[in-house]
């Protein structure tokens, strides 16, 4: 794998050069590279290895490929494959297209490093590689992107400090960075250090995963990033957070538990329950916030907050059903996030806007994009027979089986609330009255359609045949010594009942055919234009549909929003806090820096003195 990482670094330069010549060529190169990655991973199913890359000075980076990280590596390669395919056409008018592609390749390198790491140092190094590459990538976006990138970098910095502190504590105690040494000594560690390490690491993971209440960087970063990069952010980079949460939360405690002969860890452990609760809060906050957005990409960003909540809730809950459901939900969310962000990117590519209140009726122009979005949201809302239903069903089964009413309430809240927020873009972008200015919008070019359709096809297939969705994760469960969830080709068995996705698909298909037959039996309808609608006899301009007044879906859920108008918002508190801090520093700035250069010199002397004092004593 270390060779692959060097190849990746070299490829990033090559792709930059190629993209300078022609953007599509660069994107195609990246597509081939990541496609080769996907193929290689699928071929290496069931194999595994560990290798080291010495850095000198006694330090070495360790990589491994095992059952444990196989699905995550595949996820990374897959997201890059789809996005670079999408980028073949989408990058044409972008300002820094070539550097964009080169940085995207570096993201691919960081995928190998983070998911393939077998020691904490490697994990951290590639985490940071990801952070600064994505910082530049985010800042390439639209107007607000510079600020969004700063907020993102700031939050990442906090996460990095927490993570490196945890790692240093581990290294100090065990004398090495390796996972296996830590695993071996986990039980023997003093509980104080152990708790601190776990809390620091999990806090870093939650920040990276965009979980409430440290989710707010997601809104601006996802919303303002370039349209091609948002799918990578949501589909791949927040998964780094889920992965590190999974690594820490589950892997180590479970190893301890399995050694003691326990086959299930449940949320009766206090800390786990608190984390599950944070996941639940994330579901609820993400859902309500998503419903009230009027920018399509910010809406999807908040849906990511909500879905991250499901993952954390399920992983923290810790029964075998919940863990399998949570891991499957990571993959499901990759597909749905890709589907939603790519279709939004496609719309923005043609219309130049992501403001839902401006658009409408685009289905007539962009039927393929509409289909992709429709399938993605059916999966997001967890409606059978698509992939999203399987993972949500498993999580809810786990919660119901153990009688966790409050967590079940949170899961249902997010699930039913998602009908509301996913429908809004459907109604206000693709359906309804089409504004005059969008009359000549065309469907997106071939490669963009292809990328989106692959995602759609996978969403459907994995939904009908959950075996392929769940098998990698039941293998992980065997690997870490958990009782794996029982699955069949199209069925999943829980303690409470069984689920047959193929049957549901066939019955629904049958019902659909019946409807079609009944429809075709009777006389043919007359087609009418979009302005010929019933207005209950009114011709008042605010009701009649003239080309100027086209949109009746502005503030779609305003009445719902009124319910929350007096609720506290975490983001408002952060803003307040930030204002206080900047006031405080303004005082220092006034007294030290504004007057003359002396302030700087003074500060430098103090810093030097402190540093020397620390060094000498």
């Amino acid at each position: 794998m270390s060779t692959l990482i060097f190849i990746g670094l070299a490829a990033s330069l090559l792709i930059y050069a190629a993209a300078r010549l022609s953007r599509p060529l660069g994107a195609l190169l990246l597509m081939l590279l990541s496609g080769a990655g996907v193929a290689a991973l699928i071929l290496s199913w069931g194999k595994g290895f560990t290798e080291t890359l010495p850095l000198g000075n006694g330090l070495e980076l360790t990589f491994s490929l095992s059952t444990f990280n196989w699905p995550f590596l595949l996820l990374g390669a897959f997201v890059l494959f789809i996005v670079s395919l999408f980028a073949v056409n989408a990058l044409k008018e972008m300002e820094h297209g070539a550097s964009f592609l080169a940085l995207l390749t570096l993201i691919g390198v960081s995928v190998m490093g983070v998911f393939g790491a077998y020691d904490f140092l490697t994990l951290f190094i590639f985490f940071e590689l990801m952070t600064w590459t994505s910082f530049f990538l985010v800042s390439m976006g639209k107007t607000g992107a510079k600020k969004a990138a700063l907020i993102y970098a700031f939050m990442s910095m906090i996460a990095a400090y927490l993570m490196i502190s945890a790692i240093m504590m581990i290294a100090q105690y065990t004398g090495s960075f390796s996972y296996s040494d830590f695993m071996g000594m986990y039980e023997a560690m003093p509980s104080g250090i152990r708790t601190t390490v776990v809390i620091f690491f999990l806090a870093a993971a939650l920040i990276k995963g965009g979980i409430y209440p440290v989710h707010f960087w997601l809104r601006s970063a996802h919303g303002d990033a370039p349209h091609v990069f948002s799918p990578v952010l949501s589909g791949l980079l927040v998964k780094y957070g889920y992965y590190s949460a999974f690594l820490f939360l589950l892997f180590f405690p479970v190893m301890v538990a399995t050694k003691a002969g326990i086959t299930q860890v449940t949320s009766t452990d206090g800390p786990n329950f608190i984390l599950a609760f944070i996941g639940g809060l994330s579901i609820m906050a993400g859902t309500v916030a998503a419903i009230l957005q009027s920018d399509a990409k910010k809406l999807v960003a908040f849906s990511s907050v909500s879905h991250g909540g499901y993952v954390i809730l399920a992983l923290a809950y810790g029964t075998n059903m919940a863990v399998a459901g949570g891991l499957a939900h990571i993959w499901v969310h990759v597909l749905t996030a890709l589907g939603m962000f790519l279709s939004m990117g496609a719309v923005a590519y043609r219309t130049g806007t992501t403001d839902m209140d401006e658009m409408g009726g685009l289905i007539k122009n962009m039927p393929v994009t509409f289909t992709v979005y429709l399938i993605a949201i059916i999966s997001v809302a967890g409606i059978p027979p698509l992939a999203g239903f399987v993972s949500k069903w498993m999580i809810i089964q786990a919660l119901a089986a153990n009688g966790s009413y409050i967590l079940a309430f949170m899961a249902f809240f997010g699930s039913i609330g998602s009908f509301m927020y996913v429908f809004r873009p459907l109604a206000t972008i693709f359906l309804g009255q089409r504004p005059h200015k969008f009359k000549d919008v065309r469907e997106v070019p071939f490669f963009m359609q292809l990328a989106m359709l692959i995602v759609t096809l996978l969403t459907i297939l994995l939904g009908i045949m959950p075996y392929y969705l769940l098998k990698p994760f039941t293998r992980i469960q065997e690997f870490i010594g958990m009782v794996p969830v029982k699955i069949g080709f199209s069925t999943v068995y829980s303690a409470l009942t069984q689920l047959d996705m193929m049957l549901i698909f066939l019955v629904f298909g049958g019902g659909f055919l019946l409807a079609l037959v009944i429809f075709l039996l009777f006389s043919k309808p007359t087609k009418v234009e979009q302005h010929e609608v019933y207005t209950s006899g009114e011709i008042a301009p605010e009701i009649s549909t003239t080309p100027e007044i086209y949109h009746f879906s502005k503030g779609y859920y305003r009445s719902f929003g009124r319910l929350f108008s007096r609720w506290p918002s975490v983001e408002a508190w952060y803003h307040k806090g930030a204002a206080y801090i900047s006031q405080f520093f303004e005082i220092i700035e006034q007294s030290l820096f504004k007057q003359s250069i002396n302030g700087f010199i003074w500060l430098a002397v103090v810093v030097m003195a402190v540093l020397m004092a620390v060094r000498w004593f």
Partner: protein
Amino acid sequence: MALIGKIVLFIVGAFVFQVALSGFSRKVIARIQKRRGPVFWQNFYDIGKLFFKKTSISHGFIFDFGVWMAFGGTVATLLFVPVGPYSVFPGQTNFIVIIYLLAIGSLGMAMSAVGSANPFASIGISRALTQMFGYDVPFALTVVIMIYVHRTSQVAKLAAVQSDIGWHLWVMPLSALVAFIALMAMLGKKPFDTPIAPAEIASGPLVEYSGKYLGMLMVQHEFATFVEVGLFVNLFLGGGSTLLIYLVKYIIVYLLTVIISALMARFRVEQTVAFFWKWPLVLVFIQALIIIGIGIR
């Protein structure tokens, strides 16, 4: 072959029974309002008339497609609900599948209605989804309690288990109350009829439909009613050991919703949501505490 026969019998039976019952309910409402009301087979006439109309209006492909999806999704859901002792796919009457599969019908209808580009339809759908967010959460929780207590999420088993311990209506009265209120909202009966609100937004989602479209959606609505009331009968009134007992329970529950609805005025939509998140949700959690505390019996 037997399976196909069963499927046909389920669909046709549900159609005939529920359409006749809803026709009869029109008579009940009329009597409450001191009118004579139509004959009970009036709804069959209406549906037939709509299907055989020569003209109907289409607003484009998604307008048609949504209707097929709504009809197909609801018919599919119907086949997973046990009716008395019978079910089409024994062992597959999964509660969570039923409520989510029902959602595909709603999604289809919502898509089609908004696809008509009529502002009233758009407003109606936004209200319907908001209201759904209100009632579905407490309703799902009432069932989660049952699932936990009886260790199964099969609706058929949840119905059968009540012959031993007594109806859930008596065992979990608070849950039953909440579920009944949620049922009224599911059926769109007053005071929870903001999505339709005939005098206010011209029947909301249904405003643009005519001819066979309206006919199909009327049938779809009757099927959805059959599923929703059927869920309540199965979950709280012990289903039925014979078909007749099941249908009698069904008729009583349905007519109760109709009668209560005839006496009510309409909530605003955010009032509906606030209501459902206040009282029913609190009651469900109290019920959960009681069940945890004293167990079943």
